[in-house]
């Protein structure tokens, strides 16, 4: 059902609460003073009631930013940042701001469903039937698997505990935002080179020179709001000092656009460039050049990366000078076959300038990082194909949409007897499932997010419902616990939680003993403060120091990047946008917020250098077929002539191209994951930046809805 609310109706509704004088003097509940107001009194100038604010945590990406949500009359009105929160300090990005459009989305699943696979037909169930189904699925631990997303750490922790104690396989945790960052690669390289077990915190704020190797720190990299603040502080240092950023990547991202220099290097040559910079800087500094850098041939690097020798020398001098320098290993450098060694080469630059555990340098973060690499996903697919999985639980992830087509997930899914999704929307994976038992929406649920990547201190961010659930949904944690409790078997005796909130209580109890930003004598007080402040964190920054000597006397084996055949094949760059891992595509205001670089709305596109397009006879708004060179997969994309990309490279944003997920998402743009290579690098991450494609005009055209001049960047077309 849809209805239009006219201005008149809306004023009638909101006029009920108009009690300006009452609120100012603060006396009594507003309902005692109901007066009808003339329509000439605009609500802008009147008190329309009193809002209530709740602290919670953003669930739109895994960064774990703190939110304060304004509610009125039981409705979530506006998402604002939590000023006390160590990650975002009161700021919010476009994704977080549109959370309310997810909660009140007309395409949400309104209750548990038994579905017919491959179609949109379903019959409604009640929750008791749903819990019985889950109970049935949990009966056979060897033949049951869990596939979870990067959000909601509490659910992962709970499922992890259930798996361990119940003899299930380790839950697989996968999300495209992690994949595009090459997080598993970064983690492995950090473990092997720095010797600590977490993805590091890069203290951009206090550096003088930042060398970014494809890190999209203003968009989606690790913890975008924390790094946006780092960017600000870098630029606004005491005494008018302004930090300098150099960015190396084939396609200019928003982060590169805000850098002082953008160096369009050949995709896959980031590692070699880092080694060359290290070698020159080490030589300049005098003393012995570490083995890691010593073997690299500068002429070769200049040749394969496309950076002139002069520029290479100049940049290396800048990096190795007395300035505090830091190197950031971003996704495009890491998601190649050379990824692990490239990550080590970039991280080694930080060792070379001795910034580890120094202000403006690299720090260990807090706690373990649980993400699965693509190898784990592949192993799961293999098991599914072998018929070893009878029940698959999917939460917080949309594998049918997110995984490369060549990985064969959809075919493997057909071999699984029972597929149960907990998605709040009818996404591509729900369409291929037998059951969907919808979880609450972000602002309706309990939980927590460990803040690993964007905080300078140990922090847990609490999630609490700011509004009552509007549909017949149930927290997934509660569904699992109810099923376990009902089974009454061995598992019920080792999983001692009555419900999700009980689990949260028991999990956060150890924090009471720790020194944090508030203290409490016992759990009920601690719990209320935990909810009130939006989590628990240390009072002051507490970056820990890594001990142990970092050994640069090792050799890396970086193979030269593969070349594209000029005019025939192209490197494909895929990047995340405000749509995140794709589930933002059903938020109309994320669709209508223009892309920062192209100003395109409501669609996706393929970025092609104008010169390349001219050679191929392609124009703005032409539809081209993009086909992977090592597979039979192809997508159709609309051309955007993008002046800031290498002529041998094309780029497609990730997140659009949905065939399901609701009216705002479906049938828009294309999904680059379809053409991604499903090969992995040494760290088990998807080597998606190695994908090369061919481009063929289809003869069709479709104008992109861009905000920039209709004339386009380069005049008429």
């Amino acid at each position, binding site marked *: 059902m849809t209805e239009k609310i006219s201005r008149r109706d809306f004023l009638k509704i909101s006029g009920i609460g108009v009690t300006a004088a009452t609120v*100012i003097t603060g006396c009594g509940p507003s309902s005692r003073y109901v007066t009808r107001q003339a329509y000439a009194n605009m609500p802008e*100038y009147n008190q329309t009631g009193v809002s209530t604010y709740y602290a919670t945590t953003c669930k739109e990406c895994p960064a774990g930013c703190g939110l304060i949500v304004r509610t009125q009359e039981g409705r979530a009105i506006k998402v604002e940042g939590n000023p006390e929160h160590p990650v975002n300090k009161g700021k919010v990005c476009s994704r977080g701001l549109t959370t309310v459009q997810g909660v009140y989305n007309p395409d949400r699943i309104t209750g548990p469903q038994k579905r017919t696979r491959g179609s949109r037909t379903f019959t409604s169930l009640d929750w008791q039937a749903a819990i019985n189904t889950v109970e049935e699925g949990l009966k056979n631990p060897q033949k049951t698997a869990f596939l979870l997303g990067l959000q909601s750490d509490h659910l992962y922790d709970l499922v992890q505990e259930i798996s361990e104690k119940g003899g299930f396989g380790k839950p697989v945790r996968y999300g495209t935002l992690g994949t595009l960052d090459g997080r598993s690669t970064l983690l492995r390289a950090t473990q092997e080179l720095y010797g600590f077990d977490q993805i590091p915190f890069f203290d951009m704020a206090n550096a003088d020179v930042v060398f970014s190797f494809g890190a999209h720190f203003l968009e989606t990299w690790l913890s975008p709001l924390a790094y946006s603040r780092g960017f600000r502080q870098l630029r606004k240092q005491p005494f008018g000092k302004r930090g300098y950023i150099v960015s190396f990547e084939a396609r200019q991202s928003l982060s590169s656009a805000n850098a002082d220099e953008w160096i369009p290097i050949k995709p896959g040559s980031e590692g070699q460039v880092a080694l060359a910079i290290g070698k020159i800087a080490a030589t300049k500094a005098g003393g012995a050049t570490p083995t890691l850098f010593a073997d690299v041939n500068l002429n070769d690097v200049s040749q394969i990366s496309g950076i002139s020798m002069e520029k290479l020398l100049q940049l290396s001098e800048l990096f190795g000078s007395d300035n505090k320098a830091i190197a950031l290993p971003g996704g495009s450098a890491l998601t190649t076959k050379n990824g692990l060694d490239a990550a080590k080469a970039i991280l080694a630059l930080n060792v070379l300038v001795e910034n580890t555990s120094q202000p403006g340098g690299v720090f260990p973060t807090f706690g373990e990082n649980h993400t699965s690499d693509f190898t784990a996903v592949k192993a799961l697919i293999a098991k599914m194909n072998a018929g070893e999985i009878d029940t698959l639980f999917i939460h917080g992830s949309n594998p049918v949409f997110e995984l490369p087509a060549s990985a064969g997930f959809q075919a493997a899914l057909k071999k699984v007897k029972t597929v149960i999704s907990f998605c709040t929307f009818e996404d591509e994976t729900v369409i291929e499932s037998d059951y969907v038992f919808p979880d609450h929406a972000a602002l309706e649920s309990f939980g927590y997010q460990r803040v690993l990547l964007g905080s300078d201190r140990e922090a847990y961010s609490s999630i609490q419902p700011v509004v009552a659930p509007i549909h017949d949904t149930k927290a997934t944690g509660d569904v699992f616990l109810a099923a376990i409790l009902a089974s009454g078997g061995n598992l019920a005796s080792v999983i001692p939680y009555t419900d999700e909130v009980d689990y949260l209580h028991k999990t956060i109890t150890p924090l009471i003993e720790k020194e944090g930003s508030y203290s409490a004598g016992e759990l009920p007080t601690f719990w209320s403060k935990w909810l009130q402040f939006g989590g628990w964190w240390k009072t002051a920054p507490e970056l820990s120091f890594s001990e142990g000597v970092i050994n640069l006397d090792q050799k890396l084996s970086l193979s030269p990047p593969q070349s594209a055949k000029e005019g025939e094949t192209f490197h494909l760059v895929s990047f995340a946008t405000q749509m995140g891992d794709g589930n933002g595509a059903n938020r109309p205001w994320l669709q209508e917020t223009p892309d920062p670089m192209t100003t395109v709305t409501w669609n996706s596109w393929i970025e092609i250098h104008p010169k390349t397009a001219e050679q191929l006879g392609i124009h703005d708004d032409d539809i081209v077929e993009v086909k992977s060179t090592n597979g039979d997969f192809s997508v159709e994309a609309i051309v955007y002539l993008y002046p800031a990309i290498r002529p041998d490279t094309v780029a497609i944003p990730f997140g659009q191209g949905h065939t399901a997920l609701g009216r705002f998402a479906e049938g828009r743009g294309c999904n680059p994951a379809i053409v991604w290579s499903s090969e992995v690098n040494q760290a088990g991450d998807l080597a998606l930046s190695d994908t090369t494609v061919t481009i063929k005009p289809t003869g069709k055209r479709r104008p992109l809805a861009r905000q920039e001049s209709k004339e386009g960047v380069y005049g008429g077309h």
Partner: protein
Amino acid sequence: MTELLAKEAQDEKWGMVIDLDICSGCQACVTACSMENNIPFVGEDEMAYGRGMQWMRIRRYWEGEYPDVMPDHQPMLCQQCGSAPCEPVCPVFATLHSEVEKINLQVYNRCIGTRYCAINCPYQARTFNWFDYEIPAPMNSYLNPDVTVRRRGVMEKCTFCVQRIVKGRQQASAEGREMEDGDVTPACAQACPTDAITFGNLSDPESRVSKMVRSDRAYKELENLGTEPRVTYLKGGKSYGG
């Protein structure tokens, strides 16, 4: 109006400063503004016709040739001109200057949709409701009760979040004090991930905005037209000082 309210209102002259050196162009302000001010989404076709309703837009101009090409991002919104070209052309006084906040008002229930004001605005900061835009239920639940929901046929534009100014003034009055710098933050400035937007009272020489407009990086857009904009930009690093 109480005495304190009246006194505060007298001293108000709201202004905004946007630091282009740290504005990354990420568009969070655009989304924040839209969510705060009940701005309707118009869909792909209408966006393609140039009928998007964003009160704020990030102007992006490419500068230079590959490989030395970079975009310039500049947030553009109603400049709340002191001498506003949109005001004298309105036949029904739907757009006029507020004596209290010293901003441009748009009075929706007066507006008859002649669109003269939009034609006369050199900043192209005004958007027109060509249709009644549908917000399918239950999505209308998040509409902000402090902001009018506009109908087809009326003009609209940035209000400097006047509902927040009013609330800030009432709050200060209820607490028996004068308004302080930072009491009012519009949605865009509140969200801005790099804190590039500063908002405050220009009649207070000690406010952050007053200090920033005295910066030697400060300029006003199309200043030579004599519109007296209340939005000041601070030049970015790329175009300032080489």
